[in-house]
């Protein structure tokens, strides 16, 4: 995919000038962004992840209690954050799709779910590898772990439901019901730290108090988190491009685009 050719940077904000309609609200209007933006997000993600890993492995010191095992944090915490953030975005998409009967949001939901599932799996996997040396067990039936496990199943259930129902609109509605019902899982996960119903350590990173860890550890985690976010943007937009083409393959604009000369 060319980086410079066809990048509609001048056109990027045109859609917002027209008050009557937002051009990026339709699959057809949004489609050019799914072509132009992923390389930029991917490049930025690579840069920030490399920087985050450098800080995490070469700047941040070993932990006083956990030694070097704590370095799993730099992948575990951002992955867990992203798995929850993507679920919230998924819920927003299916909610807007239901409320306004819009076409693009359900497509975005379909594009978000696999990446959310991937991060939920990565959080569980890396968490398990962190738990073994520190807690002495690969898995414990703890509120937060179960909640992350259920999150993976919600993502999987949503993907499976969408794949199982041939009628796209019906699939969107049934999937939306599952995602909106499952959103109760997110506060359970977040509040389990406050209510101390989890073995996991209390929040070391909070908006209301200074961080309970070395600045370099915090920096590494945040850099990786932003890197993971940008990775998600790139991959989800790339998948959204496929979803739009798959769902709109018979529409006039897709046919016209296919016939256009390069």
């Amino acid at each position, binding site marked *: 995919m060319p980086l410079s050719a066809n990048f509609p940077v001048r056109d990027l904000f045109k859609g917002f000038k027209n008050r009557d309609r937002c051009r990026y609200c339709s699959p057809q209007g949004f489609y050019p962004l799914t072509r132009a933006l992923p390389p930029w997000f991917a490049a930025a993600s690579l840069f920030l992840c490399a920087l985050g890993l450098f800080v995490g492995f070469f700047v941040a010191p070993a932990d006083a209690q956990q030694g070097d095992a704590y370095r*799993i944090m730099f992948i575990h915490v951002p992955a867990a954050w992203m798995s929850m953030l993507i679920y919230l975005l998924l819920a927003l998409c299916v909610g807007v799709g239901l409320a306004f009967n819009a076409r693009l949001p359900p497509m975005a939901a379909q594009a978000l779910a696999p990446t959310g599932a991937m991060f939920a799996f990565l959080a569980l996997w890396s968490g398990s590898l962190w738990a073994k040396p520190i807690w002495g067990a690969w898995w414990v039936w703890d509120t937060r772990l179960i909640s992350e496990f259920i999150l993976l199943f919600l993502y999987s259930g949503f993907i499976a439901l969408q794949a199982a129902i041939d009628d796209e609109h019906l699939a969107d509605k049934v999937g939306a019901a599952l995602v909106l019902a499952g959103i109760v899982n997110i506060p359970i996960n977040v509040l389990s730290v406050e209510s101390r119903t989890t073995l996991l350590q209390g929040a070391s990173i909070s908006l209301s108090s200074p961080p309970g860890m070395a600045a370099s550890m915090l920096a590494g985690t945040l850099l990786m988190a932003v890197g993971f976010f940008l990775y998600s943007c790139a991959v989800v937009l790339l998948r959204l491009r496929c979803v739009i083409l798959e769902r709109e393959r018979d529409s006039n604009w*897709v046919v016209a685009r*296919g016939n256009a000369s*390069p």
Partner: protein
Amino acid sequence: MMWDGWLDFLEMGGYALYVWGSYAAGLALALTEFVLLLLRKRTILGHLGWKNADL
């Protein structure tokens, strides 16, 4: 420099299996997701029969 050479770095204070196991999984998942997406894109573009595959 906090590590005594590359071997010390790879040993990761005795936690090599756990630390590298986590990062290897992350890398493998991201690469798999990316490659599957490129294949999916190729499939749909081929299915559409577009002349210019990069539209």
